[in-house]
């Protein structure tokens, strides 16, 4: 009796293995992008955030001699921290954009309206795209900027969107805070 029971048990186990493997594969989503994370991907060329009507070019930004990331050249473009990871690679890719110009709203004016789960797309030079989901949004005094949280290495592929916020210092013509959106790659 014991021997006759075995084949059935094995078959059940085999079925379980196959079923679990398939579901792990599907759940894990073994798309190409998971392999990209440990490699190098093409440069970002365009940022799209449909919920806040952002569809703007991305230009490279180089950190200045004071260790500060400059703002993009124009109020309509966004800028990407060139020395950091490209969006889609492992680590935090950083894209900055203006909150406003001298006259009115600029490209990241509505950034502070992003909510958890909102989708962010980055188009890249080779025609591929990386998709991110918003995790959280924070506002910090520029003099107490969370450098490690924004620029520090991460085990997965992350995106940070940065703009200005808070009170405007009229004498020095600058906002006192930065608004930071934290997002994680999902596709």
């Amino acid at each position, binding site marked *: 009796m014991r021997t006759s029971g075995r084949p059935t048990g094995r078959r059940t*186990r085999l079925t*379980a*293995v*196959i079923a*679990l*493997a398939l579901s*792990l*594969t599907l759940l*894990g989503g*073994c798309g190409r992008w998971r*392999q990209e994370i440990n490699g*190098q991907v*093409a*440069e970002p060329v365009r940022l799209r955030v449909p919920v806040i009507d952002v569809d703007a070019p991305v230009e490279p930004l*180089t*950190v200045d001699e004071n*260790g*500060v990331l400059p*703002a*993009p050249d124009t*109020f309509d473009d966004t800028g990407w921290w060139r*020395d*950091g*990871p*490209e969006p889609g*690679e492992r*680590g935090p890719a*950083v894209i*900055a*954009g*203006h*909150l*406003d*110009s*001298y006259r009115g*709203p*600029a490209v*990241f004016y509505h950034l*502070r*309206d992003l909510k958890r789960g909102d989708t962010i797309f980055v188009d890249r030079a*080779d025609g591929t795209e990386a998709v991110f989901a918003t995790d959280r*949004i*924070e*506002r*910090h005094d*520029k*003099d107490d900027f969370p450098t490690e949280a924004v*620029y520090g290495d991460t085990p997965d592929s992350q995106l940070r969107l*940065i*703009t*200005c*916020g*808070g009170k*405007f210092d*009229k004498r020095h*013509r*600058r*906002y006192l*805070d*930065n608004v930071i959106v934290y997002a994680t790659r999902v596709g």
Partner: protein
Amino acid sequence: MGVRTTVVSTVVAATLCFPMAGVAAAQDLDCSDFATQEAAQAVYNTNRTDPFDLDRDNDNRACERLPSGRYEDDPDGGTTPTKGVETGAGGTADLVTAGEDTADDSSGPLLPLGGVVLAAAGLLLLRRRSVGKRD
């Protein structure tokens, strides 16, 4: 479900995810399977006997006709910025300051408190003024 079943399933799933790792030899690759020269070169470099004939002219450069990935010229690991980014010119300063309570902020509770103090001071001032009028 037994631990063994779970482990075996995970391994099978991992193999499904990375088919190149296990069955690369069984699959024939052509230059058209790669987006960039660097990607083809990476595969070529793993096996210099060139089983897929990616380097037809035998100069150790695989699929030379493929475009180069621009990103190869842009290594990471440069200077990490400190401090914030100056991303505002002030054109909407009044609007932004008015709506600032919508964002998370550690100094949040102080703002309403300031408002209460201001309102109380205003009320006091008004009362004194009306008292003064009566005299």
